[in-house]
């Protein structure tokens, strides 16, 4: 074939086609979530156990001074609520990552990746879909917490939404990046041990940073450089109608960095995804 023959008409894609694709991916993710009721329940049970059992017991042990964004003394349950909201998103991001590894193992991922729309767009849609699911979980948690008398200012439920979207995107992008490097589903347990637990515990989710500084300066700096800490603080401030600019910058920057990493990792010409055929294929 001559190169002259390689000049066919290029039609491109319309905005409607992009939106249809986005809608389809979000719809599929929501369907899967609804089909997996146990996933929804476990996503709620985990933070509620922390809230109802751990926090109740810890309230008597841990004294909290007045720190921004709070303007008065608060119960420990109130303090850890933003951290638990972020925890829901962290687990959801990793769950999405697990789901992508599973899809790749089972072959479902090919359906997505052979779509004619740009791969960066497909991955972004997947990320948005996962974030939307995490929002459902977080608001369900907030509703239950409200019945437990752990309530934010009424406007806080709205002002926290952009912060939740951004933190959900960051944690989802991190999960996506991690999924690109996991070769087998069995390796996913390592993610629990090396990503989720350290990120959660070495953060301001359970204790204020000044408390950690008093106990261990080294751990304080680890917490300070942990993006999850900034996701928690972004949510905490937004829940009270305030903005933590440093947290916003860190979470925004990490979202962009993780997303670029994930897109590169899933790029067929440069990616980290398995380059050999799946088992049994030739």
């Amino acid at each position, binding site marked *: 074939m001559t190169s002259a023959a390689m000049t066919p008409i290029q039609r491109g894609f319309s905005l409607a086609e992009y939106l249809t694709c986005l809608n389809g991916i979000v719809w599929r993710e929501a369907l899967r979530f609804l089909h997996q009721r146990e996933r929804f329940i476990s996503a709620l049970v985990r933070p509620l156990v922390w809230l109802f059992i751990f926090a109740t017991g810890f309230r008597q042990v841990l004294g909290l001074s007045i720190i921004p964004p709070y303007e008065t003394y608060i119960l420990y349950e109130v303090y850890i609520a933003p951290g638990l909201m972020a925890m829901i998103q962290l687990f959801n991001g990793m769950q999405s990552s697990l789901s992508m590894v599973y899809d790749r193992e*089972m072959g479902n991922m090919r359906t997505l990746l052979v779509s*004619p729309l740009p791969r960066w767009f497909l991955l972004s849609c997947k990320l948005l879909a996962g974030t939307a699911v995490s929002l459902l979980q977080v608001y369900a948690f907030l509703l239950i917490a409200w019945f437990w008398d752990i309530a934010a200012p009424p406007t806080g439920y709205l002002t926290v939404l952009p912060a939740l979207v951004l933190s959900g995107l960051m944690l989802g992008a991190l999960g996506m990046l991690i999924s690109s490097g996991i070769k087998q589903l069995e390796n996913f347990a390592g993610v629990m041990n090396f990503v989720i637990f350290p990120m959660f515990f070495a953060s301001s989710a359970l204790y204020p940073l000044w408390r950690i500084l008093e106990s261990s300066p080294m751990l304080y700096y680890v917490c300070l450089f942990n993006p999850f800490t900034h996701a928690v603080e972004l949510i905490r401030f937004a829940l009270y109608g305030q903005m933590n600019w440093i947290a916003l910058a860190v979470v925004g920057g990490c979202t962009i960095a993780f997303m670029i990493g994930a897109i590169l990792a899933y790029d067929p010409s440069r990616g980290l995804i398995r380059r050999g055929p799946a088992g049994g294929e030739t």
Partner: protein
Amino acid sequence: MTATDAFSAGQSTQGFHPRPDAVEMPALSIEGVSHAYGSRRALIDIAFSVAPASFTALLGLNGAGKSTLFSLITRLFGIQHGRIGIFGHDVAQAPGEALRLLGVVFQPRTLDLDLSVTQNLLYHAALHGIGRRDARARSGEVLARIDLADRAGSKVRDLSGGQMRRLEIARALLHRPRLLLLDEATVGLDVKARADILNHVRQLVAEQGISVLWATHLFDEIGSNDDLVVLHQGRVLAQGKVARVIADAGGSDINTAFMRLTGSTAQSGSSTS
């Protein structure tokens, strides 16, 4: 209505509407493609083309490199060396335009088992930018055609292996591609299901002018009028009309020709394998 009858019914409704850019272009052109996994070379300087509205069989034993080639055509893997074009659209340079014209049935099942039959089709349609109303209409058409209309709401995991394969083929055709790739599409199916699927695909070629690249290791799936590409250990050993390949190899049939070409005594290409 048997599955074959169901496949046959209504084929003409979709119609064959050649695109202006499809004229005089090979449906698929593979030019000097090589691929390696680390130090292991899976494909070595592959070159062949698939003519529009033709059935081309890609024959090779397990490990020949068929699935690797499919992964390159579908852009699951990046092209390391060479060039792949789909109706003239370079897969590396214009993947969107190329993939839009392509339907694929991979060797492993790629359906979402937890979704229903219709939901799988709607999801695929959305990934190709097809709106919900149009997608529902097309889904209804293809399900009627493959005799699965009564299973539209069933979970895919409740279908038989043959039904899943038919659904995958129907799904691959939902966005009306001009080139269909099938990678060992009949593996694991019984004799009747295999025959039904093969007949269906041949009808797509004859009635709708779809171009087909059919990867297989089974000799009896290759017809005497088909185009044939013999792939062995990552190299194309022969290509052309089946009769020509047999004659050039000095064989009496595909089986002996293949054995002569590959210097193999393997019998894995028999229909009962």
